[in-house]
């Protein structure tokens, strides 16, 4: 198996794993934030700030995976 075939198999799997990982991470973050706001509604501003930053970082990691996919995509068919 040459490297192009390995790329063709590995790239979609990598992006899929990144999406699954970020989905699990975001789900955990939002669930914990809702739990925390339910327990302490006065602190909702601070909890939401931390959660928004966390959510943005998690989504950024998925977008990085997508960027790597686009960078390496051109090597598959050449």
């Amino acid at each position, binding site marked *: 198996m040459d490297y192009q075939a390995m790329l063709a198999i590995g790239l979609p799997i990598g992006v899929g794993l990144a999406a699954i990982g970020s989905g699990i991470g975001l789900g955990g973050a939002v669930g914990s934030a809702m739990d925390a706001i339910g327990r302490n509604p006065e602190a909702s501003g601070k909890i939401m700030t931390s959660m928004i930053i966390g959510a943005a970082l998690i989504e950024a990691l998925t977008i990085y995976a997508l960027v790597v996919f*686009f960078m390496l995509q051109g090597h598959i068919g050449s």
Partner: protein
Amino acid sequence: MIMKTDSGLNFLDQIVKATAFLLLIFLPLGMYYWTVNNTLALFSGGIWGVINFMFISAITKLVLSPNNSDKIKALKLGIIKFPLLYLAGYFLLSVPQFEAIYLTLGFSSLFAVLILWSLGSLLVPSNWNAKVKDSEVVT
């Protein structure tokens, strides 16, 4: 009972404004001293990141706010955000003049501002401004 929910959320608006300001300053300087394509790629990536962050922030506030939760509006924003921003990202990545590394760097500029801002607020004590004002009054 009126609850304050915006404590700390101003921080996010300040981050967004600071990043946008930084990108606007960088645009003419980069075009003059660096290459036009790379500067535009970095600028577009930065704007993409800022808009993405604003959408995430708005959706999260609408979903999680205990007082004014509006899930329909959040759903509408989500419907706008995901296709529009990912299509914009796809378009930016498919422009041959833009290198993906500079787009990614621009996208990460918001996080760089965030980390530097947090470091600054950790290193500089919160009553620093008050101390400076007091010392000005004394002298």
